[in-house]
Structures are given as C-alpha cells and as structure tokens.
C-alpha cells in the first residue's frame, strides 16, 4: 500500500495536467520559453542532489559501523549478571539449542572481566584499562568476524595463541595500500622476541658486571673491614649481605620472575612464551601524521595483566602474557579496549573451574544465528526459557542501541533540514508561477474563450509544476548519484585544491568515505521533490482557473 500510495500524488497530477493535448503543448512551450522558471528548478536540483549524497554517505557510515559492531558482537549475547559467571556452559548451550536450535548457526562461551594491562615502553611502565576476554579459539570464529581482524594471515585462517615465527602483515589487510603502513611488524613474532630477550640479557649482564665490579670493590673494602671486625666479632655475615644485594638486582631487572606460573622452572624466554594474548591494536600503537602506525609493543613482547578472581570478594591477581597478534576491528572503542586470551587459561587463573568436578564457569555465551533468522524472536524465546534475574539476553542491536539510534536520529534531522531546502525551492516555484499566471492572464482568457475548462487551465500550471519538479529531481538524481559515486575522487580533488584534509581516515573506522545508494530512499526523495513542485503550483493554478474570461481577455 505504501509503495503504491507514494506514487499516487504525482500520477494524479500528471493525469490532471496532461490528459489534453493543448496542456501538453503549452506546458512544453512555457518550459522552453520561460527560463526563469528553470532557475527555481536549480534549488530543487541542489536539494535533491544533497539529499541523495547525504543519505548515501550516512547510510554508508551507518552500515559500516553496524557491520563492524556486528562483526565483533555476535547476533545474540547470553550473559550472567555476576562477574563470576554461570557454571557449566555446555548445559546452557544444550538448553539454548533446545529453545531455539533451529535458528542458531553457532555458539561459543566467553569470559569477560575488567582488567589492567601493564607493559614496558623504553623502561617505563604503561598502564591501560582493558576488557579481558577469554575466547575459545576453535569456536569463536563461528560466531563473529573476530579472526578477520587479525594481523597474521595464518591466524586469520585459524587463530592460535602460540607466537608465530614471523610473517605479520606490514600492509593493512583490510585496506591494502602500495606502501607498508606498518613496517614495524616485519620482525614481529619470535625474531623480535629473541632480539629483545637477548638485548635485555646483554643489558642485564652489563649491569651485573658493573655491579660485580662495584661489589668486588666494596668487597675488598669489606674484607678489610671484616678483617678488622673479625678481630673483634667472630660471627661475620658479609657474604649474606652480598647475596641479598644480588637478589634485589635480580628482582628489579626481571619483574616477571616471581609471578611466573611454574616457579622453579627457569624459562628460556627466547624459546618459550607465556600465555598468548591478542590485544586490540589501539592499545599498543598510534598513527602518526604520515599515516604510518607506530608500535609501543609488538607480537613477541611480554605484558602483565591484573584482573579480579571469581570469588567473593574478588581478589586482584596478575600474570604474565605474551602478545601473539593484534586485533583491529577499526572501531577504536574496541581496538583500544579489548584483550583476548584463551578461555581455559583465564578460567584457570580466575578460579572458575570447580576443583571437584572440573566443570568450568563462563560469563557469557555468544550466539550466531542462521542467515535470515529473526533476531528479536530468538531473543524473546530465550528470555522465556531463562529467568531474567539470572541471565541478561540481548541482541547486538540492543547492546549498541543508543549508538545506532543516535545515527538514525542524526539522519532524520538532516533529512528534515535538507527537505526544507526543497520546500524553499517550492516557494520559489510558487512566486514564479504567480508571475507567470499574471503574465499569461490574457492567454488564459483566450483559452477559456476557445472552450478550455477551468480544470484544464489549472492543469496547464500543475503540469508545468510537474515538469519542473521532474526536471529538477531528474537533474538532482543525476548530480547526486554522480557525486556519490565519485565522492572519494571529489574529496581528493578538494584536498588537493585546499591543501587541508577533508576526511581523516585515522579518526574514522575506514579509509574511504563509504556510500550506499538505496533506491527506495532515492525514490522517496524524488517523489517528495516532485510533490513539493506540484504542491507549490496548486495555488497559482487555482488562481489561473478562477480568472474570469472577459476580464482576462481585457488584461494588458
């Protein structure tokens, strides 16, 4: 019905306007001889073109954003309210399957806790507040586009939390460019780790040798003092003091030593790694003005993460981890917040595994639906099965509701404002048509004398309005689609002319202005513009129709 009704107004007007030959002929002649009327069409054209461009770009942005958000979040998120999570994810997965299995394509359990990430940059400790997310490397790819956003080609195929030998992308795989924007990643992986560990070892040895020189100097003084003291006190403990000093040094240069999980076993950091993590790329890098990414830390580096345990009250525990890859969704909110870790490691460290039964707990289950499945219907079905006081069940749209509705509202407001431009054009048409009616008063009298009906006279002007609307909207359509399709070239041209950046990719999630041309939107814009053009010709048309034949004929 709505698709039908949107075309009723113009069709009726078209019928009324041009069902007689003379109206068509006169409309055409007026269109050809009254160029001033075309001036009012320019504003219709510009209005339509602007609306098409703005809608296409906004739709592009919105879609890109939704894709990214959706790429990270699965379709439906099944969560517990408590940080400790719920026990036995497998039982929950089975229950979810029973409730809505026909619409579900995949599920994976996750554990998410707020945490603190510490890493060393040039000897200084950097601290970041993060969301620490335990994922199952085998099933996580089934529910989200997570793996697509990794920097190692092999990890994009199958995520592994083991550090790779090398081969990290130096060119952004999501936006391939000619020149590498991430030269630093070339040596990332084991080569970087070995280099770093060896460097630290050398540094430590140098420090140690310096210390030992100082110590030996001190010792020789001590020995002398000892010798003096030994004469007075026989229970000297100079060697113990010395060994403690060494211990202190050891602690300072290797902060991970004490917290290492398998104490007693001395790790060879050039051959072994801690538990692998995949932090968001924004946590460890920034983009400089030249568009090259500078890394504070690389795959192969070790970091320290502090997070709460599952008990009540939660206690803070910390452990060492090795960066094995970076995650880049291009949603800066996520890229600078998320750190992924194998779920079993996180469960173990947080004490989420029941020591008696060995059954783990999880925070949430991510659910991906089959294509075409009804998002809200599945959510409601699950809400019926699982009590709301224990579980929070939300779709990805619910989660990002405020953001998405903000974009929708922006679009609505912009459309209203832009439509006002076309409405202003309507007033232009109104004024110009009134002038034309006055100018053509005698012709209107002639037509009446020749037997034209009043409705026919009105039809000429309505038809004229229709033509102007169609010409304006048609030109606007061509212009708008043309601009939309070449918007990135136009942007480059503008940047080249003005020398300033119009669109800075580093602050957006994407590298080109995304556009989506939606035929339904475009047809609404055109119908709206044509309706306004016809609408503004109604008053002049009625005035023309009401002219008295004799008075019109006498008009000079």
């Amino acid at each position, binding site marked *: 019905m709505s698709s039908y009704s949107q075309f009723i107004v113009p069709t009726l007007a078209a019928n009324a306007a041009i069902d007689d030959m003379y109206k068509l002929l006169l409309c055409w002649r007026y269109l050809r001889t009254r160029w001033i009327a075309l001036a009012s069409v320019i504003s219709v054209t510009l209005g339509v073109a602007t609306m098409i461009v703005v809608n296409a770009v906004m739709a592009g942005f919105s879609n890109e954003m939704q894709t990214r958000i959706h790429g990270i979040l699965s379709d439906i998120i099944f969560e517990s309210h408590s940080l400790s999570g719920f026990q036995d994810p497998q039982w929950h997965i089975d229950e979810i399957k029973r409730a809505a299995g026909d619409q579900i394509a995949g599920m994976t359990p996750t554990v998410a806790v707020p945490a603190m990430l510490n890493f060393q940059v040039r000897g200084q400790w950097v601290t970041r507040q993060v969301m620490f997310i335990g994922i199952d490397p085998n099933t996580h790819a089934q529910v989200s586009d997570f793996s697509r956003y990794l920097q190692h080609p092999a990890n994009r195929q199958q995520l592994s939390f083991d550090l790779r030998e090398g081969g990290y992308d130096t060119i952004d795989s999501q936006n391939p460019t000619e020149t590498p924007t991430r030269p630093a990643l070339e040596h990332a992986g084991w080569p970087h780790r070995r280099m770093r560990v060896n460097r630290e070892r050398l540094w430590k040895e140098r420090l140690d040798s310096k210390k030992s020189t100082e110590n030996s100097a001190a010792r020789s003084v001590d020995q002398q003092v000892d010798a003096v003291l030994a004469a007075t006190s026989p229970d000297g403990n100079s060697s113990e003091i010395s060994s403690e000093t060494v211990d202190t040094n050891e602690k300072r240069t290797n902060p991970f030593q004490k917290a290492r999980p398998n104490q007693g076993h001395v790790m060879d950091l050039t051959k072994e790694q801690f538990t692998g993590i995949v932090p968001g790329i924004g946590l460890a890098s920034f983009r400089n003005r030249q568009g090259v990414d500078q890394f504070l830390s690389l795959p192969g580096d070790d970091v320290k993460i502090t997070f709460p345990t599952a008990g009540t009250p939660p206690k803070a525990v910390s452990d060492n981890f090795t960066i094995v890859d970076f995650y880049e969704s291009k949603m800066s909110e996520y890229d600078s917040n998320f750190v992924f870790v194998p779920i079993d490691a996180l469960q173990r460290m947080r004490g989420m595994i029941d020591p008696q039964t060995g059954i783990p707990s999880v925070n949430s289950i991510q659910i991906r639906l089959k294509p075409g499945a009804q998002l809200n219907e599945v959510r409601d079905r699950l809400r019926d099965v699982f009590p709301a006081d224990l579980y929070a069940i939300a779709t990805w749209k619910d989660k990002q509701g405020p953001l998405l509705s903000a974009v929708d509202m922006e679009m609505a407001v912009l459309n209203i404002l832009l439509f006002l431009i076309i409405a202003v054009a309507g007033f232009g048409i109104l004024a110009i048509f009134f002038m034309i009616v006055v100018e053509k008063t005698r012709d209107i009298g002639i037509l009446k004398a*020749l037997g034209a009906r009043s409705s026919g006279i009105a039809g000429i002007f309505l038809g004229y309005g229709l033509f102007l609307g169609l010409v304006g909207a048609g030109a606007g359509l061509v212009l708008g689609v043309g601009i939309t399709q070449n918007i990135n070239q136009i942007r480059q041209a503008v940047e080249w002319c003005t020398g300033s950046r119009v669109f800075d990719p580093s602050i957006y999630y994407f590298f080109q202005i995304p556009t989506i041309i939606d035929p339904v939107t475009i047809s609404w814009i055109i119908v709206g513009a044509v309706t306004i053009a016809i609408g503004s010709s109604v008053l002049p048309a009625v005035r023309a129709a009401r002219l008295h034949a004799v008075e019109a004929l006498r008009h000079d």
Partner: protein
Amino acid sequence: MLETRQIYKQYQSGTTTLEVLRGVDFLLEQGGFLAVVGQSGSGKSTLLHVMGLLDAPDRGEVWLDGQRIDNLSVWEKDRLRNNSIGMVFQAYHLLPELTALENVLAPLLIRHGIFDWFSHKQEAQKEAEELLDRFGLSDRLHHRPRQLSGGEMQRVAIARALITKPRVLLADEPTGNLDEESGAGIIEALAELNRDNGLSIVLVTHDADIASQARGIVRLAAGTVDMMNHGATGSAA
C-alpha cells in the same frame, strides 16, 4: 437561431453601479449577418460576450438553435464555446507561444484528449492548412504571431474560429486595430463566408461603413436596442 431575451447586465465598480444592458432582445436568423453598432460603452461587446457565453447575464435568456444556453452547466458552456460558437476579437488574441497553424488548431487541441488527438491530427492539420491557405497564409503556417502583420493575425484568428465549424461566428471589432485596407479585406472575408458558406455572423463595430456591409444592423444605445435595420435574412426583434 441565436436569440437573446431581455438581457440585463450591470457592472459594479466600487459604490457605483453601471447598467450596461437593459433588456436587450436580439435575434439572428440562420445564415444571417448582423452588425451591432453603437457608441463606446453602449454595451455592444458585453452583448457579444453574453451571446458567446463568456459572460453571464444578470437576467434574461440566451437561446441557440431553440435551446436555452445561458443556464447550462459550466462544462456544457465550455463545450458549446468549443463546438458551436466561433469568436474573433479586436486584439486578435492569438497565443504567442504557438505558431499560426497551432493557433488555428487550438480549439481542436482543447477538444481532444492526447490519444484522441492523434487519431484526428492529420485530418485537423489538413483542414487548418486549407483554411489558412484560403486566407492567403499558406506561407505563414509556422510563423509565430509576433512575426505576422495585424491583418495576417486577424485572418489566423478567423481561421481559428472557423476550424470548429461553428454554428455562429461572433466578431468583436475585428478591424479595430487594422488599417483600412486590411480591415476591408477582413470584412470582405466575413461577407464571403456568410454568402458562400451560409455562416451566421454577428459583427460588432463602431464603424458605419463596415456595418453597412452586413445584411442587417442593430444599433445599441444606453443598453437597449435603439434601431433595427432588417437585412434580407437577419432581423432584430
């Protein structure tokens, strides 16, 4: 054939009321050629407009071929103007956007819808060309009005009035804007139409010489018929 009975018409201009027609009885017989004469403001043109259904009388009746036409619906009046009444004006009243040929075709363009038009187009165009040819305008078919002389424009206007094969032709000072020679040509053409084709004509003029070429004369004074000179087939009641 064309008859008016006790036509009254007044115009209101601010607080003053101007009585233009005060009980005009007028009769044109089939095939008649009547000249309506009178001074400026005597109501000649108003009478013609009332007869041509461009204006409605305040009182009185207009009859055409035994049918009362002043009380018809607006649409019926439009149809009659288009089919049965041809009008020629002092100021030619051609449509400036259209060529001579298109101006002549205008009444038929008004009559026919788009699809209807295409089935009539060739025939109509041929007729229009013949009419223009008859008035010596065969080389002016595609000229715009502003490219034509006054006499030529008036001939185009007459051709336009004739294309519908009207029952009656109403001419309002058709020579008023023309020089003597062109004016004589126009009157000659009208007389010929009346003589050869039996077309009923009402000619409004203030020129006694021109009026004398009609078959009968009706003089209007102060809104009433002052004098009737019965022609061979025309009469004034």
